[in-house]
């Protein structure tokens, strides 16, 4: 339904987006994962006709959105990464304003405002100015405004940055509900792996302007099928251990985590024993060791050698 082809955007020296290829099928929930500066927002801006690509095209139902921006605008709901609301106006006024911009009016508008307020769970505080809202509430209204015209496709750019776990969980449930019950097509951008794992059927992983991997969650994790992730908990952090571990032929990557190290290694019989042995040679006390099935985070780490977030 929505296809992105060879999309590029260059700002002077920076290639913000460098040949992105992706598609959304009707009713799908797709994740777009990537670290800061990967080019996610820029991709979304081009998809929503806000900025002009340097090259490439976006097609909606086979028609070029570049040439006909008006075909996609009414079906698209965009939740920007930033809070894009009138701070001086109340939630109710903001929603009414944007509702009217989308051509709603009268009873239908009022009904829609109530309905969406209900959905984001802020009916009782609708008269308050956005200024006085908490971060989480602002985020919810930021989403609410994009839902006023019942968009067919909802594009969300990190809709949960910097908010409390409850609001976050609320939003995730809400998006899932929109996708499952209303059949809304969702493109969900985040650098939180858990969110994407929870919400999305398919995932694109983006870095440095490129899509570096794509597929269903299972497909992506299969990239790591030959590998396992081991958490090594130690009493005291020991850089010496890292050196030893990295030197081990089965181990590909070692990263520092809380209270220990995360080790990605090729599956093998005696890995755990080897780790204990290595530790004991330099007198490092291991307090725990856990083997984990890979997450998308691990996939990302594997692909880029970096963590999604610092």
């Amino acid at each position, binding site marked *: 339904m929505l296809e992105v082809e060879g999309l590029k955007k260059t700002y002077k020296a920076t290639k913000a987006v460098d040949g992105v290829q992706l598609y959304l099928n009707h009713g799908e929930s797709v994740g777009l994962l990537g670290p800061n500066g990967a080019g996610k927002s820029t991709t979304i*801006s081009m998809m*929503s*006709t*806000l*900025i*002009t690509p340097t090259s490439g095209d976006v097609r909606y139902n086979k028609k070029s959105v570049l040439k006909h*921006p*008006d075909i996609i*605008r*009414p079906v*698209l709901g*965009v939740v*920007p990464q*930033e*809070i*894009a*609301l*009138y*701070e*001086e*106006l109340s939630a109710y*006024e903001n929603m009414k*304003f*944007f509702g*009217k*911009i*989308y051509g709603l009016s009268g009873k239908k508008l009022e009904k829609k405002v109530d309905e969406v307020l209900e959905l984001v769970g802020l009916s009782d505080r609708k008269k308050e*100015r956005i200024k006085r809202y908490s971060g989480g509430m602002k985020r919810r209204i930021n989403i609410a*405004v994009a839902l006023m015209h019942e968009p067919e496709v909802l594009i969300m750019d990190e809709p949960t940055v910097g908010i409390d776990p409850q609001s976050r969980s609320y939003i995730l449930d809400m998006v899932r509900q929109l996708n499952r019950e209303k059949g809304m097509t969702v493109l969900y951008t985040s650098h939180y792996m858990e969110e994407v794992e929870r919400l999305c059927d398919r995932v694109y992983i983006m870095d440095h302007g490129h899509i570096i991997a794509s597929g269903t969650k299972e497909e992506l994790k299969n990239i790591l099928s030959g590998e396992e992730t081991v958490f090594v908990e130690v009493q005291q952090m020991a850089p010496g251990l890292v050196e030893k571990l990295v030197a081990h032929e089965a181990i590909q990557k070692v990263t520092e985590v809380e209270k220990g190290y995360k080790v990605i290694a090729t599956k093998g019989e005696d890995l755990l024993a080897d780790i204990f042995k290595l530790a004991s040679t330099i007198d490092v006390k291991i307090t725990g060791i856990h083997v984990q099935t890979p997450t998308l985070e691990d996939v990302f780490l594997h692909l880029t050698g970096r963590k999604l977030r610092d």
Partner: protein
Amino acid sequence: MWNMLKKDFLTISRDRSEVLVLLVMPFVLIAILGFALGGINQENQGIAEIPIALVMSQEFDQELAAFEQRLEQEGFPIEMINQVIESAEAIDPATMLKDLLLTPELEGTINTEIGYQLTEAQQALQDDEIAAIITIPDQFSYQTLSAIYLDEEPKVSIEVLVQDYEQIRSDVIESVVTNFVDQYNFETSIALATGGEAIETAVNTEGFGETTYLSTQEPVSAFQYYTIGMAVMFALYVAATVSSNAFKEKETHVFARLMVTGEKPIRYLISKAVSATVLTALQLAILFVLSGVLFQTFANQSFSFWLEMSVITLSFALTVGSVATLLTAIALQFNNDAISATFSGGVVTIFAFLGGSFTPVEQISPVIRMLGNWTPNGAVMTAYLQTIQGLSFDAVMPMIYRVLAMSIVFISVAVFIFPKRRLA
């Protein structure tokens, strides 16, 4: 569009500092300046009395005698000649102009000196003792009478020589004379139902401004002066307010959001013009009404006075709207709100000074007045003051055309530089 306006109005009116700048400050200043300067200038507010010289290069008795002789030569019956000569005194234009200029109603506006010889008057004009010379040439009465009764082309005309570095003075003088001529033509053509045609006493208007008409009124009071001065000055701030509000929309990403909805940039830009226009009109109306109610600034004014004031106000509001559009276009295009700050921090003050918001600048220098009349606020200030002084609307129109022309220029430039479709 209404939706956009309502949003602008709400966001601006909920900002307390904006309300303070746009309404409270000018009002306080009107009160302060009005009271402070009202006392000092009691007799002589606004423009000073204009000294002029009326030079009579003819003797009416001689003219009349010559005319009588002429009628005799033409062979008119004696009773008729007597009748004509008798009524001639009543319709002699030179006498009537003299009477008009000396009428008590003009006191405070024009001070007419008679008895100057032409050369003395010219010297006085050069020495700035007088502002204008009105000359009734030799044979003027004779020729006018011949024109009326004998249907001859008059060969001489009243000459008005104005030292025209003060626009308003030349307007006043010219208006007195032209008005007189019109009135004279009208009255004589009615009086002489004998088929006599109106005289064609041309006023030599060369060397000074447009024709204006004067019905003498109170001079401008300090309250009137500063109500207008502060109102036109603070109206300019509306433009900066609207443009920084627009920039805030861009900064807080609501502008991007609007563009994603498919809202056309040009419509957005127009909404800014309309917002600023409506806000300015409201602001000016509130200031005028408040000043009128609390200080009796515009007591006993006619309906047509208010109509004219409204036309000027709307024209100015439109101009402020266009300035707002231009500032918005610049701020959004260059992604920098320095323009609004520069405008409200410096340009407004300079314009307000040039336009005469702080003090009647024509008293400092006619050049400043001339410059001031090329600022939107200065031009409408002149228009407002002319209206308050009772100049006819025709006299006010040039300034209105001027600000409307400015508006068109500003809007065109704004549309030209504003991004047409996308942000980048």
